[in-house]
């Protein structure tokens, strides 16, 4: 019993344990729900899954189900980001504990009851609990914002190497701005969501394209989903920056830019409602340019640091281009977290800009179905890239080392990039192939995407199995990671009966 308690404490109180549980939960949901669409449906796996698990897939409720599924996965990802932030950013222990606890209760409640409501009969008590979970996640955000308030005197950082304003830590301020923007944007979606059942009907944003007159509530939902994903990306960039101990000139330039970008981008997204699109898009473009610029500076700093540290390890003082490149690629886990940010531009940013510029000339001439594909592909890739960065960062936290670390890192990078690249080609295929002749392009791109994603999932599964096996070991990694959060090994041993209470008292 004590052994279970100690492991339970690791899984639900330590930063690494909490992240492990959330990744495992999302992986489980992805694996199970992935059977219901795409190639799994084509291969007949869906029918088997429906029979086996009793999924209730009422055709009229598909959009509602998908909205809830997206929210449950998003809550898991938000919880992971919260754990990462509380693990990296100084705050009082009681704040860290209460924020993490709230996030855990929130995402698990929304995930369990949201999916139960959406896919296993319409039990409205479950729907209420799902909303309760979302509300707890909002409360978590409030706690986080309070803990991150940058004007706190006890967390000033006047170190000249880092961005600060009269001692106020600007990185903390950027995280605070992100948290407040996220809370406001959550309210933005919640207000619209609260109107369901009062004449406002469930929809997927991609199904609204080309409607000349969208309602305010529809605009609010469209704005909500865009900004929430963008803010998750901002949060992750700041987390990765802290992991790299980002500092120096680029840090000092980037933090104000990141704050400005986050604020403008969020304001632009909110402005979509009163402005009904139009000029609000210009505001969003301006804000996201700032954010992308800060991201670029992070990548420049991080790549330089990776190269510098590796060359120092090798004792190379003046490196050739190839030695520099080799040093950059030496550790795929660290390299990958930043490379994925670069790669995102090829699959989403550049594609998005091209589509916006040529919208009427090219994309609005296509059937709406083809234009819709770009939208769904676009944001699935963006979500996927965020997931792979989290995964790579977690691999480092979990202690992957040596050859296994390299295999894991390159598998995730190459597998996901092949998949995202293939999906980008797939969604843009009408540019170079007609509907009549598209089947080979569809087959090849989908095959590459499936293989790529399968590789990533296998790598993820291997990581999860490794950590699961570790949990059964008495002196596994989990014990050390638990100790890192102040829950000492002695205490763990005591709970397991390895040391008597009297010995501990001595």
């Amino acid at each position, binding site marked *: 019993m004590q052994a279970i308690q100690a492991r339970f404490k690791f899984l639900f109180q330590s930063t690494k344990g909490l992240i492990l549980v959330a990744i495992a939960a999302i992986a489980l949901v992805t694996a199970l729900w992935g059977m219901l669409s795409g190639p799994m449906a084509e291969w007949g796996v869906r029918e088997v899954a429906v029979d086996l698990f009793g999924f209730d897939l009422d055709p009229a409720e598909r959009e509602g189900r998908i909205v809830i599924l997206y929210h449950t996965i998003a809550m898991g990802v938000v919880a992971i980001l919260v754990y990462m932030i509380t693990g990296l950013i100084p705050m009082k222990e009681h704040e860290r504990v209460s924020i993490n606890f709230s996030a855990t209760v929130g995402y698990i409640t929304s995930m369990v009851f949201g999916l139960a409501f959406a896919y296993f009969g319409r039990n409205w008590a479950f729907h209420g609990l799902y909303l309760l979970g979302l509300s707890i996640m909002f409360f978590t955000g409030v706690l986080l914002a309070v803990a991150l308030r940058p004007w706190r005197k006890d967390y000033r950082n006047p170190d000249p190497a880092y961005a600060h304003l009269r001692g106020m830590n600007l990185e903390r301020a950027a995280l605070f701005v992100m948290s407040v923007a996220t809370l406001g944007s959550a309210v933005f979606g919640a207000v619209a969501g609260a109107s369901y059942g009062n004449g406002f*009907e469930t929809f997927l944003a991609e199904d609204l394209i080309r409607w000349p007159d969208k309602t305010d509530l529809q605009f609010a939902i469209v704005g909500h989903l865009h900004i929430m994903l963008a803010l998750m990306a901002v949060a992750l960039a700041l987390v990765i920056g802290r992991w790299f101990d980002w500092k120096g000139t680029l840090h000092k330039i980037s933090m104000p830019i990141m704050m400005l970008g986050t604020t403008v981008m969020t304001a632009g997204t909110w402005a979509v409602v009163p402005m009904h699109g*139009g000029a609000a898009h210009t505001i969003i473009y301006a804000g996201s340019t700032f954010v992308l610029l800060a991201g670029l500076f992070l990548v420049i700093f991080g790549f330089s640091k990776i190269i510098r540290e590796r060359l120092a390890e090798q004792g190379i003082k003046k490196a050739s281009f190839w030695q520099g490149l080799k040093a950059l690629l030496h550790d795929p886990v660290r390299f990958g977290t930043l490379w994925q940010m670069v790669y995102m531009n090829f699959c989403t940013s550049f594609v998005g800009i091209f589509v916006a510029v040529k919208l009427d000339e090219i994309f609005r001439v296509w059937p*709406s179905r083809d234009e819709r594909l770009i939208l769904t592909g676009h944001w699935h890739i963006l979500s996927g890239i965020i997931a792979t960065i989290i995964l790579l960062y977690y691999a480092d936290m979990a202690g992957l080392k040596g050859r296994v670390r390299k295999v894991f890192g390159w598998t995730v990078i190459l597998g996901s990039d092949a998949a995202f690249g293939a999906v980008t080609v797939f969604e843009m295929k009408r540019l170079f192939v007609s509907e*009549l002749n*598209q*089947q080979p392009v569809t087959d*090849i791109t989908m*095959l590459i995407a499936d293989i790529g994603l399968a590789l990533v999932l296998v790598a993820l599964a291997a990581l999860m199995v490794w950590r699961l096996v570790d949990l059964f070991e008495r002196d596994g990694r989990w014990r050390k990671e638990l100790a890192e959060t102040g829950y000492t090994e002695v205490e763990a041993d005591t709970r397991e009966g390895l040391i008597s209470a009297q010995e501990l008292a001595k």
Partner: protein
Amino acid sequence: MKVKLFLIAIMALVLAACSAAEAGEPPVIETGVDPEAWARVPAGEFLMGQFDHPTVIDYDYEIMVTHVTNAQFAEFLNAALADGTIRFNEDKTEVLGYYPGDEFHGYRHEERIDEGDWLLFPVDEEGVRLEFDGETFTPLAGYENHPATFVTWFGARAYCEYYGGRLPSEAEWEKAARGTDGRPYPWGGEIERNNANFYSSRDPFEEGVGKQGDTTPVGFYNGKTYDGYETIDSPSPYGLYDMAGNVWQWTGNVYDKQHYRYLRGGSKGEYEHWLRVWASINIAPDFAGPSVGFRCVRDVAAAE
């Protein structure tokens, strides 16, 4: 060595994916469903859209039991070209017809649809199922009773009006598809692979061309077994066939502030959720493609 084997396996899979064969002449299948038949839809209330909004159509109307077929469309082109209702462009690569134009509102993304002659049918577009010998249109062998494709909205409208009908409004189309009980598919609440022709539905016409498949003869899903392939009888409550899948169907509504026209029913190239009776896509009215067809409605008085 292992890496090489892995790469070879990947290449083999990619090449296998590339090997989608060209569609040859399809098997000639008589479904027994008459493309000349019409079904009557009585006046009254029905549930429209995904959220079942009570909607009233206060008149009886008739709608074609199947899509317009290649044979029917060829016959129309020959007749209407002969009597001058429609015409060729100068090099006979396009069939054109008059359209009185739409009101232009100058709305964002809206394109002008002015009065004049518009494309009805692209004669030499790759994939069209009609042959033209310089004088007469004839359907390709085996495709006579398949739905006419590559017909623009203007072409579909011209066809229907030529025979005294019109394109169905979205409401007329949906009521004809689902009846009055709010069902999501024309035949009921669930979809099986042999209910309709959709993406990866594994019908015999997917063989050789891949999962997006080919058109199936109109009325194919009528419970018959064709060369070992068993279909489920899948009519709508009013006895219409192919109201889900095969090819999308133009509807007649012209909406303010946009030039797009809406299509219903899903197609051979779509996943099954696009076959739900309320699902729609939209395209400019001069679009012609391999997954787009139509059927007509007519007023009961005209029919009698």
